């Protein structure tokens, strides 16, 4: 049997969900027999593959690179899963939203708070422009399943993946849905 092609990506988040993924520990070894990681920040593939079975998206949509990557993911993935609270709700990165214009925040951090050489990062093609409003992934693309949590515990991730691999779908219920 072909292994299920899995991608994990990471947008505006802290990597905690990926860490929680790794916290499945020795189950990862079992998992390696069933899945093939075809794209991930912990692997070296540089381009998102053209066809993926399942993509786990950690993080919120916070800059224009994320927007572009989201659409690429949706176009290439059979199943897209919002992975963790940032992807599901916007969570902590979205705390900047009530402050309004991100340019003002950049000004504070890089110009006002610099001891020397104050300049707000802007180089085109290098540092992506921030979107006005950080948003959850499903506001940008259609999302099939949601794994909330900050981060979702490894047992929650395990359950979601097991369901998906065994039954082809993964609607979490009960305590497994708790945000935060």
């Amino acid at each position, binding site marked *: 049997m072909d292994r299920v092609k899995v991608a994990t990506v990471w947008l505006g988040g802290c990597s905690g969900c990926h860490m929680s993924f790794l916290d499945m520990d020795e189950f990862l070894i079992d998992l390696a027999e069933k899945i093939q990681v075809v794209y991930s920040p912990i692997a070296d593939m540089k381009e998102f593959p053209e066809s993926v079975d399942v993509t786990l998206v950690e993080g919120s949509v916070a800059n224009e690179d994320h927007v572009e990557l989201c*659409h690429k993911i*949706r*176009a290439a993935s059979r199943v897209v899963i919002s992975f963790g609270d940032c992807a599901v709700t916007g969570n902590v990165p979205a705390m900047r939203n009530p402050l309004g214009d991100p340019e003002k925040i950049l000004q504070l951090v890089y110009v006002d708070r610099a001891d020397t050489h104050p300049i707000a990062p802007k180089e085109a093609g290098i540092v992506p422009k921030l979107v006005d409003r950080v948003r959850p992934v*499903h506001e*940008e*693309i*259609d999302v099939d399943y949601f794994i909330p949590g900050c981060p979702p515990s490894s047992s929650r991730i395990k359950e979601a993946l097991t369901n998906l691999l065994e039954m082809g779908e993964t609607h979490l219920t009960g305590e497994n849905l708790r945000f935060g």
Partner: protein
Amino acid sequence: MDSNELMEIKEAQIASAKPIRLRCCLAAGCLYSEGEAIKEALENALEEEGLTDQVEVLGVGCMGLCSEGPLVQVDPDGILYEKVKPSDARSIVAALKGGKATAKIGDLSHPFFTKQVPVVLENSGKVDPERIETYIARDGYQALNTVINELHPSQVVEEVTKSGLRGRGGAGYRTGLKWELVAKTPGDRKYVVCNADEGDPGAFMDRSVLESDPHRVLEGMAIAAYAVGANQGYIYVRGEYPLCIKRLQIAIRQARNLGLLGSAVFDTSFNFRVDLRIGAGAFVCGEETALMASIEGRRGTPRPRPPFPAESGLWNSPTLINNVETYANIPLIIRKGAAWFSSMGTERSKGTKVFSLAGKVKHTGLIEVPMGTPLRVIVNEMAGGAPDGGKVKAVYTGGLSGGCIPAEKLDTPVDYESLVQIGAIMGSGGMIVMDETDNMVDLAHFFMEFCVDESCGKCVPCRAGTVQIYRLLDRILNGMGEDGDIAKLQELSEMVKSCSLCGLGQSAPNPVVSTLRYYRNEYIECIHKNPKRNGNKNAVKAAK
């Protein structure tokens, strides 16, 4: 005050009237367009011409055809001058002696006038709202006299029940039934409240009635108070209507001075005091439980019903709440009888209804027609259809809680049931006409902006749901809509409608539901304008 004195006032007033009267509209629309100045100019012109013995100038209430205002009508010959300017005064006076007036002369044979059946508006434009005598001269307060002196309260209730009158505030609840309920509920203290918090966008019937004929409403309330056993009344009137407030204050004072309100009305043991409560800019206070909260000096937030006001209203006492037009019908029902009243209208909707016409029609203003009049007659004949060669696209009735009626359905008669059947409601009587240039998504957006602004914030569906509906509409209108948005709108609308605490929330989605029902294509067109639509989430998924 007794019946004889009332007759004396009436006769004295009739006797004092001069042979020719220039009735000068001083209701809000005309007043804002120099109504006072016109009246003054006319008086000056009469002075100059030495006609003050034979001609008098009366400041009167609304004559209906607001779009052609300011209006001046000559009584008794009936000539109606439209769009009068103070500079026209001299020629109007001259015309009394055979000259030619510079002002435009209105066509009184136009259906706008001929198809009207004035019941509530019988005195509008005829009496001076600031002089009680002019009301009494037209049989004012006679019904109250009859009721107090000749009828048992239960007979009054019966008469109202028999008339088939239904609440004119919107829902169409049977007025007699409501009265009966309050009358039957035991309580040391009962209240009668007049809901004059007319807030629906595009509705100005109540304002007009109060500005033009305030005593009629006071009389109706007094009759109601007698019927249900109340001694205290409140009129809750919009703060946005300063002229109404002023005229009501004058009217209450005058009626009290004559012993028609206050203690010992008509020298009987019946006491009825009326106080004004001035709204402070909250649409939700038109909802009866919110209105009562506001009268009690609290935040105007509604509470769940039951208990209904009839059982537990103001200060937990039985309370009768009717709207302005409902009360305004009462004196005539008593005077002319329930049978007369129920001879007008349709099987289940009796009497007449006042409508305010606004939007894309030639003649905007106020009309009163028998229930059951087809919309087509009102919109195309009376209001003259769309102006500037346009085409009527739809009529929006019932204000916020109503719905739109597409041009194809203009043959629908205006009565409670027929309108509900096509997804609109009678509502309080606001009628907004849209033409082909109007975008229905924009209309829904306008109404929803209103709802967001006016939601009291107490219950979640209305407070947060309307905001989300508004955001969706805003997105669609601005060309940022997505394919799933219409379904989302419908789902939200259904929830807000089913779950909101009060009428405001329950009807808030109506503009969306009703425009979606008939003009879904306009929504789709807007969504298709989204430049990013091909890259949007649903499109991408579909392309997979």
